[in-house]
């Protein structure tokens, strides 16, 4: 019970690092130590960091594939319906279903829907827009968009224990450790 009481007031513990290398190494160790609900924050994408916290595959490509297919199929279907069924125009006896001239609009709408799904899908899967987030409560976190690197162990992690997790993070030699209020 006491555990859950602490959990509700703290969002997690945050450790700050000076370099991308230290962050990746720390993320690896934390993940290996059995912590599952962790996240790392950096001012630029770091190769291997997501893998270090156990995040290997994302579903953005699937969203884009579905979006692109919807765009392409609906574009072709619309053109077929307009040119053959609802508004057929006889131009010199040419077939109504003149598919080569439908390719361009099909292509463009595939790209349009695919591209929009990439952007919107990325934002939605990331849970953005989210103007408020507990990590912003730590003043040092402003540097996460400049030159500092952060690792957070969430209090919702089953292995989380305020004292033990703090001493574990200290063993990673961070610049500082801060409690993230929820």
């Amino acid at each position: 019970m006491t555990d859950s009481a602490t959990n509700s007031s703290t969002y997690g513990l945050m450790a700050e690092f000076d370099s991308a290398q230290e962050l990746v190494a720390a993320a690896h160790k934390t993940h290996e130590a059995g912590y599952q609900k962790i996240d790392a924050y950096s001012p630029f994408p770091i190769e291997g960091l997501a893998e270090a916290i156990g995040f290997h595959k994302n579903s953005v490509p699937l969203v884009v594939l579905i979006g692109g297919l919807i765009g392409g199929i609906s574009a072709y279907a619309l053109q077929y319906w307009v040119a053959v069924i609802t508004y057929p125009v006889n131009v010199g006896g040419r077939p109504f279903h003149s598919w080569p001239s439908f390719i361009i609009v099909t292509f463009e709408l595939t790209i349009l829907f695919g591209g929009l799904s990439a952007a919107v899908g990325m934002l939605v899967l990331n849970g953005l827009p989210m103007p408020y987030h507990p990590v912003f409560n730590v003043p040092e976190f402003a540097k996460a968009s400049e030159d500092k690197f952060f690792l957070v162990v969430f209090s919702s992690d089953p292995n989380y224990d305020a004292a033990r997790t703090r001493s574990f993070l200290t063993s990673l030699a961070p610049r500082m450790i801060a409690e993230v209020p929820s």
Partner: protein
Amino acid sequence: MAPNTQIPVADRRVPVIAPGHTFSTITEKISNIVLSRPVSLGWIFGFLIVFSMMNMLMMALGYLFIKGTGIWGINIPIGWGFAIVNFVWWIGIGHAGTLISAILCLLRQTWRNSINRFAEAMTLFAVACAGIFPLAHMGRPWLAYWMFPYPNTMRYWPNFRSPLVWDVFAVSTYFTISLVFWFVGLIPDFASLRDRAESTLVQRIYGLLAMGWRGSARHWHRYETAYLLLAGLATPLVLSVHTVVSFDFAVGIVPGWHTTIFPPYFVAGAIYSGFAMVLCLAIPIRAIYKLEDFITMRHLENAAKVMLATGLIVAYGYGMEAFMGWYSGNQFDSFLLWNRFHGPYQLAYAALLACNIFIPQVLWLKKFRVSTGWLWLISFIVLVGMWLERFIIVVVSLSRDFLTSSWGMYYPTKWDWMTFAGTIGMFLTAMWLFVRILPMISIFELRTLLPEAHVHEAAEVKQ
């Protein structure tokens, strides 16, 4: 997955980022232009000039909407005058932005990172300028939405076999995807500006735009996937847009239009003029805002090389047009060739050959590629040349078609010139505002150019 894995450390060429920079200095230098640099008198003076030019566009369009397209120099046989010339020219200029942001991203060209942001902005503004022309040319621009397929009480639908309808889809998709690509690229930089802003209002504005970006590893993972996919989608798109624009001509039967070389030749010409515009903008901007550390001579030289290469493709296009005029044995095609050299617009054609083919050949010499003054001048000449090319294609072809009875001349009126100059004003007004309110260089992508951003390589150095 990371777009930048090659760092030119042991490279004898000029680096893509000057030595001595850290994550912090990059952030500071670029964001300070937006956040803390005072507005200079020069900026205000320049803004007044370009803003007045933009107002000239508003006047020209206002008068056009009252009077109709009769105020322009167009008439039968030349129904496509400046409006279409300028449309094709502006769309072409936009192409360099997407080429830099998408194609060079896929090709892992690290030098793109410092110029992609403002090249993409250039794309958006150029396409916005381009879009004005077909709308204004319609005569009844308030009915522009008729171009889109939507259920209506007239029970009418667009003709999907028409290249002009293809154009609507190509250009509107191009604008939308360019905007999305640009905005997605800006999100992490908005977060940087949000965290560095001094005033609450500024912080809130950038905070809203950043949408709560916090640089989480999971977010970056999805972000990079989405960015790469957008680049992959934008690459065929950029090649398709000018192809579709060229279909507006190539599908017609007018001599000088009806040729299969148009799509690749238009795309090459678009990239040619686009890089010229990039150089025309980058050279003054890097000097004024002291960005020589980030936009180095390497960038300018590479852009010059791209210009030289695409210019040669364009020259091949001209050569092939001339060759086909002779080889086809078609009297109209061979007359077209004769008419270009000896007809009433011969001066324009001579200027075109000089601007697009002969003068840019000096770029073979390194001396001209590394001199900002020369490079700016040559880029400007190329922009003029590419405008002339569109003029030759649109106007000269229409002025002399199959029947001598339907020959005619085109003389632009002052309203034509005012509209054209006005869109240049609108483009520059947008650029003027852009450099002061948005980070003109991608901050987070520049950070990835530093060696310490690369975990594996830095670890190897330590050992």
